C-alpha cells in the first residue's frame, strides 16, 4: 500500500521545540512503534502527520508525495488516546463512523459500509445506533478505529490508543490492531510508552527522547541489545519487571 516518511521534521510551539529534526519511515504494510515518555514529542509527530501540528520545517511524504492536508481525501488517519473525548456524545456510533466516508457515496452504500466496518472491529453492525455513552472505553476505541478506516486510509497513526484503558481491555484493542494490519495490509505508526505493548504489535521501533529519535531498528534487536541509556530505562520500567517488596 503506502509508505509514510518524515523527513527532517521540526515542530515548534512558541519557544519549545517539540520535534527536533526527526526522520522516520513507516514502510508499506508494517507497524512501526514509537516509544518515549510524555512530552518527548510522540504525539506531535502523530498530529503533524494529519495536519494538526504546525510544521516549522521538513516534510511528511506519502509514497514520495506530500501528505494531502486539504480537501476530502485524507489518506493518513489518526486514532486518539482518550476514548471518552474522541467520539461526539451526541452522535450515534454509526454516524461517527460514517463521517469520513466520501459524501457522494449513496445512502444505502454508506450504511452498508458502516455495517461492514463495525463488524470488522467486532462491535457488530447491530449496534450502529448506540450512543458512545453506552459503550466501554475499549469499545469506543474500536469504534474510533472503524472511523479511521472509513476514510480508506493508506496509513493509520495510533496515538497511545490503549493507555487510557484497563489492562484487561487493552488486549482486545491490541489484537484488533494486529488483525487489521494483517487483513488490510495497513501501514501503522503505533505510539505508546509501554515497551511490552510495542513489542507485541510492532515489527520495528523508534525511541524518542526530548524531541529526537535516539534509537531505531527491528523491535527484537532494539529490545535485546539497546544502545541508548534511555531505551534501557524504558526496558526496566516495563511493569512487572522489577520487584520492590520490602523484606519483612
Amino acid at each position, binding site marked *: 500500500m503506502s509508505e509514510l516518511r518524515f523527513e527532517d521534521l521540526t515542530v515548534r510551539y512558541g519557544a519549545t521545540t517539540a520535534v527536533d529534526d526527526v526522520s522516520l519511515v513507516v514502510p508499506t504494510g508494517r507497524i512501526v512503534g514509537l516509544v518515549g*515518555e*510524555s*512530552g518527548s514529542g510522540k504525539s506531535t509527530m502523530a498530529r503533524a502527520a*494529519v*495536519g*494538526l501540528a504546525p510544521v516549522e520545517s521538513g516534510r511528511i511524504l506519502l509514497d514520495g508525495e506530500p501528505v494531502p492536508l486539504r*480537501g*476530502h*481525501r*485524507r489518506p493518513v*488517519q*489518526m486514532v*486518539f*488516546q*482518550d476514548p471518552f473525548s*474522541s467520539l*461526539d*456524545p*451526541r*452522535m450515534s456510533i454509526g454516524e461517527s463512523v460514517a*463521517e*469520513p466516508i466520501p459524501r457522494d457515496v449513496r445512502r444505502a452504500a454508506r450504511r452498508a459500509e458502516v455495517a461492514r466496518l463495525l463488524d470488522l472491529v*467486532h462491535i*457488530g453492525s447491530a449496534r450502529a445506533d448506540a*450512543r458512545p455513552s453506552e459503550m*466501554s*472505553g*475499549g469499545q469506543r476505541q474500536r469504534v*474510533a478505529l472503524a*472511523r*479511521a478506516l472509513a*476514510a480508506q486510509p493508506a496509513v493509520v497513526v495510533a496515538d497511545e490508543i490503549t493507555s487510557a484503558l*484497563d*489492562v*484487561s*481491555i*487493552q*488486549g*482486545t484493542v*491490541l*489484537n484488533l490492531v494486529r*488483525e487489521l494490519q494483517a487483513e488490510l495490509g495497513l501501514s501503522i505508526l503505533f505510539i505508546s*510508552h509501554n*515497551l*511490552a505493548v510495542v*513489542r*507485541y504489535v510492532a515489527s520495528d521501533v523508534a525511541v524518542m527522547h526530548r524531541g529526537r529519535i535516539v534509537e531505531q531498528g527491528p523491535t527484537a534487536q532494539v*529490545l535485546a541489545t539497546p544502545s541508548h541509556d534511555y531505551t534501557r530505562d*524504558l526496558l526496566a*520500567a*516495563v*511493569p*512487572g*519487571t*522489577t*520487584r*520492590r*517488596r*520490602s523484606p*519483612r
Partner: protein
Amino acid sequence: MTGTPSRRRHLSALRTPLGVVTALLAITVLVLAVVAPILWTDSAKAVDTDDILAGPSAEHWAGTDNLGRDIVFRTLVATRLSIELALSATLIAVVVGLVLGVAPQLLGRRAGRLVTASINIAVAFPGLLLALFFAVVFGIGATGAVLAIGLAGAPSFARLVQTMVAGVVSLDYVAAARTAGVGRFRILVRHVLPNVAEPLVVNATIGAGGALLAFAGLSFLGLGVQAPAYDWGRLLFDGVSALYVNPGAALVPGLAVLVTGLSFNLFGESIAKAVGVPTQGTALAPRTVVAPRRSTDHAGPATEAPVGGTDDVVLDVRDLEVAFPGADGPVQVVRGVTFAVRRGEAVGIVGESGSGKSLTALAVSQLVDDLGQVDAERLRFLGEDLLTSDTAARRKMLGTSMAMVFQDPMTSFNPTRRIGGQLAEVSRHHHGLDRKQAMARAVDRLGAVRIPAPERRARQYPHEFSGGMRQRAMIGMGIMGSPSLIIADEPTTALDVTVQQQVLDLLAAIRREDDVALVLISHDVTVVGEVCDRVLVMYAGRIVEDLPAADLATAGRHPYTQALVAAVPSMDTALDEPLAVIPGRPVDPADVPPGCAYAARCPLATERCRVEDPPLAGDERGRVACWHAGEPIEPMQLSTTRTDVP
C-alpha cells in the same frame, strides 16, 4: 434513544421544590401571555370615570389608574407585550452572541483574535449602561428598547458561546472530524453547535428573566414602551406617579415583573444545576437508607479475625458495604468486603474499573460523598471505631495518620495556591506548627519525595509541576505527618511507565523507612505485584481472591485472577498468538446475577455456579471465592474470543 439521558436530567430538575415552583410559575406566565389579552382586553380598556385613581375595592382589587382603568386587568393584559419584548430581546442577544461567539472558529486566526478582543472589551461594560446607550441611539420606543437590551446582552452570550465552543473544539472528536476532511462550517454545525446548545438554552432562559427586568427598567425610565401601548414597566412608570394616592397601581405591575423575572431566572438555574450533575436522574433523589443488613453469609473462616493477632492491625474492615441511590432503589457497589492491613504491610487491590476498588478506599478514609451509604460490621483504624459519628478529634487523627493519594493529582491540589503553602497548611491545621515551621517541614518533605530544588519548587503552582512531580508532591503532602497508612488509588495510571517506576519506588521507600502500611489500588496486576505483599482481587463489589503477591503470576486460584494476569502483555508474551482477553462485560452493580457474579465470563462455570454464590473461604494460602478454585484452565479457554468482547 436519542437524547434520553439529557432529557432525564432535565426532568430531574423538576424534582427539586425550587425547580417545580419556578417551572409552574413560568408556565403560568406563558399561558397568561397568550390568553390574557383575548379574555380581558375590554375590561382593561374600560374607563370608569367614577373611580379615577381609586384605591383597592371589591370591584377593582388593586384600584384604578388616572383614567379609572382596572390595574389588575391592565397588568394581566400587559403580560403578553412584556413577555414578547423580553423574548425578542433575548433572541437578539442569543443570535448576535452566537454569531460573534462562533466567528473566531470560522474566521482565520487573526480576524478571530480581533473578534475575541472586541467581545472582551464589550463584556467589561456594565449591561445597563450599554442598554441605555443603545436606547438613546435607537430612539425611544419599544423597538429601540428591544434592540438596546438585545445588543446589550449579546456580549456576555458571545463570551459564553466562545468559551463553550473553545472547549468542544479542543476535544479529539473535532480533531478526528478535521482529519477526516470535514470542513470548518460542517464541523460547527454537526459537532460544535449540538454540544453547546443545551447550556445555551439554559442560559437563555436565565437571560430572559434578566431581559424582563431590564425592560421594566427602561420603560420605567420612559425610554421603553410608549402610550397607548403598555407593558409592565410602563404600568409601573404610570403607577409610581400616583404612588401616594394608590400604591397598588405601582405594586401590582412591579410584583409581576419581579415574580416573572425571578421565575425564569431560577428555573434556568435549576435546570443548569441538574444538567451539570453527572449522574443521571439519580443524583437528586433523596439519600436512601440501605435495607437492613443481611446476616454476614460471606465471611469465611479466615475472615473472623485478622491473621496474626490484632495488636499489629492498622486497618480492620469487616463486611463493608457501600450503596448509592439508583433509579430502582439503592445500588450496592461494594457488597461485603472484609480485610485487614497490618503495620508496615502493603496490600494491593486489583480489579477492572467499576469493581468497587475506589469506593472501598473512600469508605475507609471517610470520603464517600453524601449520597453514598456506608455500612459495615466493623471499620477500625488504629483501634478507633470509624463507624461512630464524626468528631473533630477523629478527623484530626485521620488527617495525621492516614494519607490518601489519588489518580489525578491535578484535581487534588488547589490550582491557585503554591505547592509549599498547600503542604504547610496540613501541618498548621493538624500538627499545630506555626507558619515558618510548617513551611520548613513542607520543603523537607518535598525533598523527601525527591523533588529537586525543593525550596524553589515549594514556591511554584501545581501547573508548573509535571504529572509525575505533582504525584510525588501529593505523596509528600501525605507524609507531612507520620502516617500509619497510605492509601493510593491508581497513583500511577495517568503517568508514563518510567515515571510510574519512580513513584512506585518512592512508595516502596517510604514504606520501608517508616514501617508505613500501604493500600495500593490498580487495574494493572503487574503494578500491584511489584510493590505489595498481598493482593486482594475484587470483582463486582466483592473480594474474590486474597493471595500473596508472589503467587499472583502463577498460583492464582480464581479464574478471574488468572484472566487478569493473562491479559497483560509482558516482555515474553508469545508474539504469534492473540493476547488473552476477558470475554463479556463487567457486572452492572444495579443488576448482579444470582450465583457467582463472574459466571457469565468464566471458562469453568458450571450449573452450580449460576445458582449458588461461592463464599470467600480461607485456608493457609489465603482466601478464594470459587466453586472450582485452582482447577486448571485450558489455554484455549482463557478466551481470545473475537466477537462481543468488552
